[in-house]
């Protein structure tokens, strides 16, 4: 599903974000990428969403070879990947329903279809009764679940979650992780970055550790100590 072959990203001579990373993720896998701040986790995700281009190396996601990907086809690639951010990135002046619907409006889905689809997805993230709330009326955990609903509403094959629990209390953080596990059970490949030791250890999934832009450990059913 995801293949990185000797991928490097060098911003300038003094700053190498990622160095010769090799990573292979199978379909339906749940992979946790851990590492300190500045280790290169976010750069890795930006390479996958094609916000950045690698300095060298090969990236293939969902059968798409990024070397052959034209700029005008980038939007089509991004429609296949759901992304969740640490700071939620919800539109503050739109309701929960409208925020989720926004992802469908972008791809030109009809209004009736949107009205059918959005409640189903809000149900998956347990927010059906909050459809008409504004983001500032929600708790942090609820906002992040709205962001997840928006990321999965187009049924992407891959969900990338960049420190989704970073801004949340432990109680809410688990709500979010449970939703991610549920989505993974439905068959979506999940790539989660975090530096929450507790979450990593309880999930018992494949853990990839990045330090100074390099993968230093890649083990299944692993634990992690900061």
């Amino acid at each position: 599903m995801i293949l990185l072959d000797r991928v490097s990203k060098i911003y300038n001579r003094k700053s190498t974000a990622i160095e010769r990373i090799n990573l292979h993720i199978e379909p339906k896998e749940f992979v946790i990428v851990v590492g300190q701040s500045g280790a290169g986790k976010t750069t890795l995700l930006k390479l996958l969403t094609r916000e950045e281009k690698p300095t060298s190396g090969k990236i293939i996601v969902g059968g798409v070879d990024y070397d052959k990907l034209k700029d005008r086809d980038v939007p089509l690639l991004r429609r296949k990947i759901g992304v969740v951010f640490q700071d939620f990135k919800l539109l503050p002046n739109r309701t929960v329903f409208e925020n989720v619907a926004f992802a469908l409006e972008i791809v030109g889905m009809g209004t009736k279809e949107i009205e059918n689809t959005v409640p189903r997805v809000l149900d998956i993230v347990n927010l059906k009764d909050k459809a008409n709330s504004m983001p500032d009326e929600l708790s942090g955990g609820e906002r992040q679940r709205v962001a997840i609903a928006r990321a999965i509403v187009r049924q992407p094959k891959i969900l990338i979650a960049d420190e989704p629990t970073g801004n949340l209390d432990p109680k809410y953080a688990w709500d979010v992780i449970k939703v991610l596990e549920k989505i993974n059970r439905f068959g979506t490949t999940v790539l989660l970055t975090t530096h929450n030791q507790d979450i990593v250890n309880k999930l018992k999934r494949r853990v990839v550790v990045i330090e100074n832009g390099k993968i230093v450990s890649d083990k299944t059913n692993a634990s992690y100590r900061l």
Partner: protein
Amino acid sequence: MKRFWITLYRVLKAGVINFLRNLSLALPAIAVMSVTLFISLFLYIANATLSNTINQISNKISISIYLSDSVTNQQLKEFQTSLSKLPNVKSVGYISKDEALAIYKAENASNESLLTAVNETNNPLPASINVTPVDLNKIQDLKDFINQKKYQKLQDQQLGTSYAGDRKQAIDRIAKATTVMREAGIVGIIIFALVSALIIFNTLRMAIFNRRDEITIMRLLGARPWFIRGPFIVEASIYGIISALVSVGSIKLLFTISANSLQASSLGLLDISFSANYFNNHFWLLLGVQLLLGLTLGSLFAYIATRRFLKLKTSK
């Protein structure tokens, strides 16, 4: 295809909503764009008016050749025929002594003492040939022709020929003023167009900055560049439409006020009543052209601004 129309509708809707939200930010852009369109419309109408004035005066100009009383019918006919064969002659007319007297009497009908004096004398007015030239600026050839010896002896020795010199000077003055006005207007339009471009750039730059989160989300959710750029272009097109309406409305107001309050038929060289008529007769056409101009300018500036400020390409 259905998807295209749905997306188009959403882009238009987003543009209108953004415009309403951004209204205070948009006012300077609309104001300066209105001035630009106002100048161009005023210049266009003034140009049409001055051309009309020149035409009218030109048509009134004719060369009068006053004839000596001794000219025979044979000589007259020959002179007329050779004149009408010249390339720069539009028409050749003849006013007999009696007709000249009748015209003179009609023109001075209120001056009784003058009329009495004229009646007491044997008609002192000469017959004349009136020549209307095609091009007023090329009457030298005509002069040379008329001044040939064989024709000179047919002319009244005292009155000779009138070339309507005063009117020609007036036409030259108007033509010069038209050129100056046209050039100054074009410079004005260019300056104001540049200023409105800069202000629109700035307005959209701020709008893009205010909506940077929304734009990031759209990009990451896989929105096509046109879906992101479209609303900004719609927004600036609305500036253009409003400016066009303001400019046409202002011109209408200007003509109404000058015609009614000032009670003036002209503003300097400009024949206001003709301008107002011209504007009213071509109202829908002018409105259409202004709308098209506003739309084109607004969307063009927005296209350039969004290319410049919306960073839609992946960085290397």
